[in-house]
C-alpha cells in the first residue's frame, strides 16, 4: 500500500446533509480528486439506506432487495475520511457558529456545509389525503409501505372475488413510474392528471395522444383533465375517490405523485435566500446566500431555478467538489432531456421539446398503427436541431440528442423517418455529449478506445459512460465498432469462429466429432476452451451420452465425472429434486447415502441438497443408491439446466393463484440435461409475491389470475440482472412453447459463457427483437426451435444411470488406473470443527536433485 500524501494541515471538515444520488456524486467527486486529503466528509443522511439509484426506484418492486439499487461504493467502507451516518435527521444549522444540530441533539462543526436534501413529494390538500392507504412515491421506505398495503389489498380483493385497484394522483413522469410499480404489485392502476394530457412537461399534445393509447392498452385507467376532489375511507377498507369530472373510483390505495417541492425547510429556518418558487437560491457556483454553505441537486435553485433531474444535480455536485478544491467551475445549465421506459413504453424528450424558441419549426411523424410519435424541433432556418419528442420508439434518441444545437446534415425529416436514414455516430462532433448522466463526450470515449479500451466494460471503467442509466450504451457500442476495434469473435487460438458460428457449422455439416471439426475448421489439438464448447454444441444437437466415444475427451472435468469437483479433488453429488419437491422416503435415502459415505450435507440456493466429499470411485455407488430409490443425480455443474425453483403455489399457499410447483416440476423434467452456452436456471412463482425469486432467473414464470407471465434473461451472481417481461397471461401450453423457443434460440446464438442477460444485451434490437422472434416468429424459425427442443425432451435419459449400465464408462470411475481399489491418499477430512471440511494430506517430498 502506498501512503497517502501528507496534507499540509489537518483535513478541513465538510458536512453534507442528504445522501441521495447527487450527494453521493459530490462525495465521490471530492474524494477522488482530493489527493492531498484536504477534506474530511461527514454525511448526515435521513434515509436508512445509503444513496441508491432513485431513478430506478420502480425496479425495487418484485425483488425487494435494496442492494440491487445500491450505487457503487456508496458506503465508502474503504475511505477513512468519510463518515456516513444513516438515519440521522438534521434539525437545523447556524451559519454564524458554523454548526449543524441533529434531531438527536448532536452539534457538529463544519468548515463548509453542502445541502443536498433533495425534494419532498407534494401532497395536494385534498380532503382525506392523509387517510390510511394514501402514500407518496419517493423513497425505498415509501415503496415498502405501498407494498404492505398492496399485498393486503390483493388478498382482500381475492376474497371478495375482484381485482385490486390503485390510484395514482399525477400523470407525469413519476406518476407513470408509480403506476408501473402498482401494476407490478398486482394492482390495476388508474392515473389521474390535472393537465389535459399525460406527461405535460415532457410530451406535447400529439405525443400524449399516442402515449395515452399505449398506456391504456396496458390496462392502466387514464383520467386526464381531472383533479382529485376527495378521498373517503370505506368500511371495507377501500377508498372512495371523487374526481372533478364527476368520476368516482373505488380504490385500494392512493399514491400521490403530483410533483415535488424542494426540501428547503432547514435552509429557510437558517435564514438563507430562497428562490421565488422554493429551493435554496444559489449562484452558478452553487453558493447560497450564506458564506460556507452550498446547495446541490433538487433543493438548489440555481439562479432561482430548481432542476428535478439527476444529470443537472450531478453537474452541481461536480461544481462544488471543484470549488472546494480551489477550482472555479460553474453550473453549465441543465440538460432537461429525458428518456424513459415507462410501463414498457419508450418516451424521450430533449432540448426545446415544446418548440418555444421564436420561429421554431416542427417536423412530426406519427404512426397510429405502430403506436409511435416522433417530432423534431428546428431553428427558423430549418437547419439547427433544437429538440424533439419520441414516444413509442426512442431508439433515435441518443443520436438526435447529440445533435441538439448543431446543424443537421442532410434532410432533417430523415432524422425521424421510419426506416431511419438514421445518422451514424461517426457524424457526431467530438464534443458531442454521449453520456449525459456522467457528461462523457464522444471525444473522451474515442480517446479511451484509442488508449486500448476495446469493450463496453473497459470503456465504462475508464470514462464512466453508461454507468448510470445505460441509455447511451448502444451509441458507445457503435463508436467501438466504427473506431475499427475488431472485436475478435474467435473462440480461442484453435478456432477462428464464434460459438454461434460453430453451432451453425455443426448443424449444417453434420460433423459429429471434435477431430473432424478441428481438422476442417480449426488448427492444433484444441484446449480447455474450445473442447467443452464443442462438447456443449454436440450435446445440444443430439441425445448421445456425454461420455460416448470421442466426446468423453472433450468434457470439462465435472461433465466427465458427472459431479461437481471440490477444492480437494473430491466431488459433490446433488440429487435431482424437480421444483424443490421431495418425499420423506427420498429424504431418508439421501440421509442414508450421506451417512454411509460420510458426506457433508448442505442445502443449496436452488432448492436441492448437496452431498460433499465423494471420491471419484464412490460416485457410481452413490448414483446406484439414488437410482434404486427411484431418483437420479442432477447437474449442479456444467453449462446446463440447473434447477427450476418454485414456491409452494396454489395447492397449499393461501395467496397462490396457480400451481407453481406442478409447473416447476414439469419444466424441470422437460429441460433437464439441456446443454447451453452457460448454466440456465428457472423459477416459478405462484403469485405476484414472487417467493421463488423467478425474476432472478434466466427464465422466470410468475402466476397471474389469467395464467402465467414469462420473464427472461435474469440472473443472480456476480452481475445480477432482473428478468424482463416477455409475454403476459399465457396458458400452460403457450408458456412451454415460448420457453422452448427462447431456450433453443439462446442455445443456438449465444457466445460461450454468455448468460442470457448478456446475450440479450448483445442482441441487435434487444428485448423487442427477442419478443418478435419468440412470440411472433419474426424469423420463421419457431417450428425449428420447437422441434429441436422436442428432440431433446424425447432423447433425455438418466446420464448417471447410463454410466452404471456401461462397463467401459464405469471403469473410468477410479482414483488410480493401476490400483482401482485404492482411494486417493491425499484426500482427508477434518471433523474437529462445527462442520466437516476437506483437507489435503501431503505426499512425502521427494529428495531434491541438482
Amino acid at each position, binding site marked *: 500500500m502506498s501512503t497517502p500524501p501528507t496534507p499540509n494541515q489537518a483535513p478541513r471538515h465538510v458536512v453534507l446533509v442528504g445522501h441521495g444520488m447527487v450527494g453521493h456524486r459530490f462525495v465521490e467527486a471530492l474524494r477522488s480528486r482530493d489527493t492531498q486529503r484536504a477534506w474530511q466528509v461527514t454525511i448526515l443522511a435521513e434515509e436508512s439506506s445509503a444513496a441508491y439509484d432513485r431513478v430506478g426506484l420502480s425496479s425495487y418492486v418484485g425483488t425487494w432487495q435494496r442492494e440491487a439499487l445500491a450505487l457503487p461504493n456508496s458506503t465508502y467502507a474503504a475511505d477513512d475520511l468519510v463518515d456516513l451516518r444513516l438515519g440521522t435527521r438534521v434539525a437545523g444549522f447556524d451559519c454564524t457558529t458554523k454548526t449543524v444540530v441533529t434531531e438527536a441533539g448532536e452539534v457538529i462543526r463544519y468548515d463548509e456545509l453542502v445541502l443536498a436534501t433533495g425534494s419532498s413529494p407534494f401532497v395536494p390538500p385534498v380532503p382525506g389525503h392523509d387517510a390510511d392507504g394514501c402514500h407518496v412515491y419517493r423513497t425505498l421506505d415509501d415503496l415498502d409501505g405501498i407494498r404492505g398495503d398492496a399485498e393486503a389489498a390483493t388478498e382482500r380483493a381475492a376474497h371478495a372475488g375482484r381485482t385490486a385497484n390503485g390510484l395514482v394522483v399525477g400523470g407525469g413522469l413519476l406518476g407513470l413510474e408509480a403506476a408501473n410499480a402498482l401494476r407490478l404489485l398486482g394492482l390495476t392502476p388508474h392515473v389521474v392528471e390535472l393537465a389535459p394530457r399525460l406527461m405535460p412537461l415532457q410530451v406535447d399534445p400529439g405525443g400524449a395522444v399516442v402515449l395515452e393509447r399505449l398506456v391504456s392498452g396496458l390496462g392502466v385507467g387514464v383520467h386526464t383533465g381531472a383533479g382529485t376532489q376527495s378521498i373517503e375511507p370505506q368500511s371495507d377498507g377501500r377508498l372512495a375517490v371523487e374526481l372533478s369530472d364527476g368520476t368516482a373510483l373505488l380504490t385500494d390505495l392512493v399514491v400521490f405523485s403530483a410533483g415535488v417541492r424542494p426540501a428547503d425547510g432547514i435552509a429557510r429556518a437558517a435564514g438563507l435566500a430562497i428562490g421565488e418558487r422554493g429551493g435554496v437560491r444559489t449562484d452558478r457556483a452553487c453558493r447560497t446566500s450564506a458564506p460556507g454553505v452550498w446547495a446541490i441537486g433538487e433543493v438548489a435553485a440555481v439562479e432561482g431555478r430548481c432542476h428535478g433531474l439527476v444529470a443537472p444535480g450531478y453537474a452541481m455536485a461536480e461544481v462544488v467538489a471543484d470549488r472546494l478544491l480551489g477550482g472555479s467551475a460553474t453550473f453549465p445549465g441543465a440538460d432537461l432531456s429525458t428518456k424513459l421506459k415507462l410501463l414498457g413504453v419508450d418516451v424521450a424528450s430533449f432540448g426545446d421539446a415544446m418548440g418555444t424558441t421564436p420561429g421554431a419549426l416542427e417536423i412530426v411523424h406519427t404512426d397510429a398503427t405502430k403506436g409511435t410519435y416522433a417530432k423534431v424541433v428546428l431553428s427558423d432556418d430549418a437547419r439547427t436541431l433544437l429538440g424533439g419528442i419520441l414516444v413509442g420508439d426512442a431508439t433515435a434518441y441518443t443520436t438526435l440528442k447529440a445533435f441538439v444545437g448543431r446543424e443537421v446534415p442532410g434532410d432533417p425529416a430523415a432524422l425521424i423517418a421510419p426506416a431511419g436514414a438514421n445518422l451514424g455516430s461517426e457524424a457526431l462532433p467530438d464534443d458531442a455529449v454521449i453520456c449525459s448522466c456522467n457528461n462523457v463526450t464522444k471525444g473522451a470515449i474515442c480517446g479511451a478506445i484509442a488508449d486500448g479500451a476495446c469493450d463496453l466494460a473497459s470503456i465504462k471503467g475508464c470514462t464512466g459512460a453508461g454507468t448510470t442509466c445505460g441509455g447511451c450504451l448502444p451509441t458507445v457500442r457503435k463508436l467501438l465498432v466504427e473506431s475499427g476495434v475488431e472485436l475478435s469473435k474467435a473462440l480461442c487460438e484453435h478456432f477462428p469462429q464464434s460459438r454461434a458460428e460453430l453451432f451453425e457449422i455443426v448443424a449444417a455439416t453434420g460433423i459429429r466429432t471434435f477431430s473432424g471439426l478441428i481438422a476442417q475448421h480449426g488448427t492444433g*489439438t484444441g*484446449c*480447455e476452451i474450445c473442447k467443452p464448447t464443442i462438447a456443449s454444441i454436440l450435446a445440444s444437437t443430439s441425445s448421445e451420452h456425454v461420455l460416448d466415444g470421442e466426446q468423453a475427451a472433450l468434457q470439462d472435468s465435472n461433465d466427465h465425472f458427472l459431479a461437481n469437483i471440490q477444492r480437494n479433488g473430491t466431488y459433490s453429488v446433488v440429487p435431482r429434486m424437480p421444483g424443490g419437491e421431495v418425499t420423506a422416503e427420498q429424504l431418508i435415502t439421501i440421509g442414508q447415502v450421506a451417512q454411509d459415505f460420510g458426506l457433508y450435507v448442505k442445502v443449496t440456493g436452488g432448492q436441492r441438497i448437496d452431498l460433499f466429499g465423494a471420491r471419484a470411485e464412490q460416485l457410481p455407488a452413490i448414483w446406484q443408491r439414488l437410482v434404486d430409490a427411484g431418483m437420479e443425480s442432477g447437474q449442479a455443474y456444467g453449462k446446463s439446466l440447473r434447477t427450476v425453483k418454485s414456491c409452494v403455489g396454489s395447492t397449499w399457499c393461501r395467496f397462490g393463484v396457480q400451481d407453481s410447483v406442478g409447473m416447476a416440476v414439469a419444466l424441470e423434467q422437460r429441460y433437464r440435461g439441456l446443454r447451453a452456452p452457460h448454466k440456465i436456471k428457472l423459477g416459478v412463482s405462484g403469485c405476484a409475491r414472487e417467493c421463488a425469486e423467478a425474476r432472478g432467473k434466466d427464465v422466470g414464470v410468475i402466476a397471474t389470475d389469467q395464467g402465467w407471465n414469462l420473464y427472461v434473461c435474469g440472473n443472480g451472481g456476480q452481475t445480477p440482472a432482473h428478468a424482463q417481461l416477455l409475454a403476459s397471461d399465457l396458458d400452460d401450453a403457450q408458456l412451454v412453447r415460448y420457453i422452448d423457443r427462447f431456450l433453443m434460440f439462446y442455445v443456438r446464438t449465444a457466445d460461450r459463457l454468455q448468460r442470457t442477460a448478456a446475450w440479450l444485451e448483445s442482441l441487435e434490437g434487444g428485448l423487442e427483437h427477442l419478443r418478435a422472434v419468440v412470440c411472433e416468429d419474426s424469423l420463421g424459425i419457431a417450428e425449428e426451435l420447437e422441434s429441436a427442443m422436442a428432440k431433446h425432451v424425447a432423447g433425455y435419459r438418466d446420464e448417471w444411470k447410463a454410466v452404471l449400465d456401461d462397463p467401459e464408462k464405469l471403469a*473410468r470411475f477410479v482414483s488410480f488406473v493401476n490400483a482401482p481399489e485404492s482411494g*486417493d491418499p491425499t484426500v482427508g477430512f477434518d471433523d474437529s470443527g462445527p462442520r466437516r471440511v476437506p483437507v*489435503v494430506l501431503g505426499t512425502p517430498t521427494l529428495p531434491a536433485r541438482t
Partner: protein
Amino acid sequence: MTVLVRPAPAELSTAPRPAVRPGVLPPPGLLAWVEACPVQQLVPGRGVAVLLPDRAQAALFLQPTGMIYAIDNIDPYSGAAVLSRGLTGDRAGEPTVASPLLKQVFSLRTGQALDEPEVSVRTYAVRVLDGVIRIGDLATGVVRGPRGWRRSAGSSGAR
C-alpha cells in the same frame, strides 16, 4: 523407446492415428518402472492417475497426436491430486493440461505452468512395452537428469 502402432477405432475418427510414443525420454541411469495400464485403456485427450510407490502419484496422458506424457498429479496451486482430470490440448503447439480446479495451464512436456514462470510440476519418464505404459520412478536414484526432473520450489505444495 518403443513405438507402438494401434489401429484407430472406426467409430471415433476416420483419420489414421499417429504412432504412440513417449513424450519425455527417460533420463540416463537406472530407473524402476511402474506399470500403469495398457495403452488401449487410455482415452486420447484425457488423463488417468497412476499410484506410485511412496504414495506419490502421476498424471498420465495420451494425446490425440499419439504422444504420451506423465507429470505429477498434484496441482501445485491447490495441493489436490487432480491434474490427471484436467482438459488437455495445446497452446501454440505446446501440449498442455489445464487444472480442473482453477484452470491454470501446464506444459505436459516440461511441467511448466505456462502463465507463471516460477511454478512447475515435475515430469516422469514414460515408456511403452508390449502395449503397456510404464512410468519411470526415481526410487533407484538418478544422479543427473534433464530439467524436467528437477523438482522446482514452486511445486512443493499449495501456495
